[in-house]
């Protein structure tokens, strides 16, 4: 069950972009729900001492906003609605010997999740060093903004520098700046993708990224089983909710089921800019309240 499902007054799952716009226009506070597969990582994930149920919010579910809008396999470009499940998309791409090179990334299978949810969370994955992540693959998107306006950014071309790259702002923004409803991606020739390793399924709770030069030390200091990727300096491992961990200069850590500690910002410039962006994009703090932990 989605963690946010206890607090929203009601939820709705429109099957059209217009339906999403309508819900956004009428809501005062709104949670955005993908498939719920990455809810563990959410700042709103169940933490008894820091409940967020006092937020009087509605919810919009994107699970019915699904399907491939356009697939030009010769150009290696695909456009899909945000609620499309990743495994559904991969299955279709595989028919043309193509894929999204999204490797396993943690305790839950990314493949069961939706495109929109994965883009919103932007979790590291095991093929990132070789193929990049969502910010490198997204060519354009349609977004429903906090006032219900539908806007398009980027393009369908594999290369474009027309205007500001606003689509990059929405990657990893956890639905706090707008709701991504449709996305255009470049695809890749099929790569060998191992099934999520058994160990990775067992390993839960946290991902840490350190500089490559700190990787060996960080891995040996963990003192617990981990999956690692030296190329990106990423380590996946289990961590108790209040567990402490040795930190390294410039590193970052994402936890699960630890509430506000799931996502912590320390860089004051980043915090200030994020707050400013939020004031411009969503001045009434309507979208995914509390999700970033800093507003």
């Amino acid at each position: 069950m989605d963690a946010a499902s206890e607090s929203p007054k009601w939820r709705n799952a429109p099957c059209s972009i217009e339906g999403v716009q309508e819900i956004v226009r009428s809501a005062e506070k709104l949670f955005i729900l993908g498939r719920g597969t990455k809810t563990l990582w959410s700042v709103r994930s169940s933490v008894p001492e820091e409940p967020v149920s006092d937020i009087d919010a509605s919810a919009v579910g994107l699970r019915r906003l699904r399907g491939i809008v356009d697939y030009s396999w010769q150009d290696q470009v695909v456009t899909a609605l945000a609620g499309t499940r990743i495994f559904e998309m991969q299955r279709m791409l595989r028919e043309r010997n193509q894929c999204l090179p999204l490797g396993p990334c943690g305790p839950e299978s990314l493949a069961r999740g939706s495109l929109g949810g994965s883009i919103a969370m932007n979790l590291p994955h095991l093929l990132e060093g070789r193929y990049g992540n969502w910010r490198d693959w997204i060519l354009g998107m349609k977004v429903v903004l906090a006032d219900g306006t539908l806007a398009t950014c980027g393009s369908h071309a594999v290369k474009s520098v027309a205007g500001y790259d606003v689509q990059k702002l929405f990657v990893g923004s956890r639905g706090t700046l707008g709701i991504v409803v449709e996305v255009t991606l470049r695809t890749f020739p099929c790569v060998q993708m191992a099934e999520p390793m058994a160990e990775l399924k067992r390993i839960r709770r946290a991902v840490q990224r350190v500089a490559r030069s700190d990787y060996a030390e960080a891995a040996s200091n963990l003192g617990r089983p981990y999956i690692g990727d030296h190329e990106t300096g990423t380590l996946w491992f289990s961590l108790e909710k209040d567990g402490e961990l040795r930190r390294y200069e410039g590193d970052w850590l994402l936890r699960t089921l630890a509430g506000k500690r799931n996502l912590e910002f320390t860089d004051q410039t980043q915090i200030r800019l994020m707050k400013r962006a939020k004031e411009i994009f969503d001045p009434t703090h309507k979208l995914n309240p509390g999700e970033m932990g800093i507003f």
Partner: protein
Amino acid sequence: MRVQRRGSDNLRMDEVQIIRAMEAIVGEEHVLAGPSARRAYDCDAYTVDRSKPTCVVMPASTGEVAAIVKWCVANETPFTARGAGTGLSGGALPALGGIVISTKRMTRILEIDVENRRLLAQAGIANKRISDAVAEHGLHFAPDPSSQTVSTLGGNIAENSGGPHTLKYGVTVQHILGVKMVDPTGEVLEIEGGRPGFDFLGLIVGGEGTLGIVTEAWVKLTPLPKAVSTALIAFPTIRDATETVADIIASGTVPAALEMMDANILKALKLAFGLEHPEGTQAMLLVECDGAAAAAVESDMDIVKEVCARHHALETKVAKDEAERAKMWMVRKKGIGAMGRLAPSIVTHDGVIPRSKLPEMLEFVYAVAEKHRLGIANIFHAGDGNLHPCFYFDDRDPKQVEAVVEAGEEIIRRCIELGGSVTGEHGIGVEKIDLMKLMFSPADLELQAMAKRIFNDGSLCNPCKVLPNQKSCVEHKARWRGVAW
């Protein structure tokens, strides 16, 4: 009141005050304000529109840039950053006059961190110097615009520059790890990418210098490929070459670079560099495959050769050694320069289309040139679908100039109709500002304006670029638009 200063220049009192203030910050020897300097800095490599700055300031550090910007804000003076001035859309044009902040003196490499494959440099360093500095470690800076021997890191960041090898390695934004910048209020910010939270770095790269002035950047260093195979392939028709490009991409092979040159470019290259090609050649492809293992690279090149043969290739010449490979690339990178042999003026356009539409698009481009009776040559990043139709003409004839502008717009409109973009790598600048409305609705443009406001809520930092209908720009536009005509 006007003041005679530095020989023949005739300056207003307020302009003299600006110059004195700048001299106080960077020293008199680092401020250019004479008539020849103002003329030299009134445009970048997009020479159609021109606007003179009051002066050109050459700071040496982030601190000096911040002091300059703070003074500009306090005195409501517009400012525009400039690297090497190789931009092709007028990004460094001081549209409302004011100060040009040149990064000419900010060329130092500050740190090379081989273990973490990154390098910190000042924004004024030439792109190629970065790769040269780390070649001994088997690394390079992957973005390689044709101007890379002179174009600067700061300029590449502003324009999110591409280049032939971006087909495989990605454009500049994928190779910038963090920046130090002076925001439009004069505050120094350090912004790192690849962290949880909003991706501000992704917005700044490609911001065309309108979101602040990047003064230093950490760049990602990429291992040099262990094996490389480069080939020049001649085709009897344009369609054979363009269909080859579409089929190579559709085959699933991703070459490191896939470039096309048509007969008129080949004519110029023959005149300039003695490049030979088989009789009857109408187009050539330059294809490069690279990777960590020679066998895999060879197998990729075999697929390429097989596709080429299917499309009636006249000749396939694979570089035997590094010297031959370097020569193949030299002719590609100097191709536009060689066009000086064909006509006194050249305008290079920049549009993108889906790669599968290359055959029909190229036919359209030649038909447009014929309709307007213009000379046309094509040299471009075919693998990305990034066209660079070059019109060559005589700019002393106003009718030819008019025809060039009309033909260019027809081509760009067609790019959009086919699902492409108004610019693949040259940027919007002032050149394409009116074309933004072809690609984006008012709501889309407002979204971009919102993103801009995160950093720039004023009208002094590189004004009148990227977004159409900016306050105070419309009335000034008549002053600089088409001054060169």
